[in-house]
């Protein structure tokens, strides 16, 4: 049996679901960021797999995946800086306890 596009799509869908579960159920802001990273990885698998199996001549999937990796690094840096700033001011990084803007 050959490894086909569907195999990669199945792995990426499972990884995406796991990341979404992490985002929905975690209280810790850092753990939520970890879930986001898993979901971005799932998207990258899809892009590279489509590049390989649907458009092997073009390299657009690789380029998109590289740009997503760059933006994931940006997002992690800014998100973790925000977590640090929140921790310094509120002494907690549990997102269900950060409600100073809720009336």
């Amino acid at each position: 049996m050959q490894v086909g596009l569907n195999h990669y799509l199945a792995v990426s869908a499972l990884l995406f679901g796991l990341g979404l579960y992490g985002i929905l159920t975690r209280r810790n802001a850092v753990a939520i960021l970890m879930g986001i990273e898993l979901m971005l990885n799932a998207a990258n698998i899809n892009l590279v797999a489509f590049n390989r199996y649907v458009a092997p001549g073009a390299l657009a999937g690789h380029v998109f995946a590289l740009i997503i990796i760059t933006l994931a690094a940006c997002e992690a840096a800014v998100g973790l800086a925000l977590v640090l700033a929140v921790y310094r001011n509120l002494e907690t990084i549990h997102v269900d306890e950060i409600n100073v803007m809720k009336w």
Partner: protein
Amino acid sequence: MGELAAFIILAIVTLLPAVVVVTSRNLVRAAMSLIPSFLGVTGLFVLLQAEFVAGIQILIYAGAIAVLILFVIMLTQGGTGTALRQVNEQQLVGGLVAGALTIALLGLLLRTPWPLVAGTLPRSNVAAVGGAFLTNFILAFEISSLVLLVSLVGALVIARREQ
């Protein structure tokens, strides 16, 4: 046959640590489990003949982002103890929503007849990726460099201690 075996091993290496990432009570263990998961994705990229993306994945994800997350866990000790409750009270609903979305995605992706093209990528596509970045995708390249600069300055300004 060999390719299938490699794919199955890499899929397990990707998905099992991801389960630990989203369920472990110990956040350091969750962050460390990110690394094998990222390395499994790297292996999948190599199987897909995307060597350059695989290298960048190791450098940025397994290297930079995992270390950054570990540092922030160490710096925010008050929120990461194993005695603290790490999940909110939406565990059941969250699991149902994530499971439903996964099943929907699987059904959708696996039933669609994709226009498959038989063909192979060029043997070494690093130069081709670089060429594509500097010709067809020059605008995206420049904008992502600008975003990188802005996020660098923004992260410094946000994380800096007020005098």
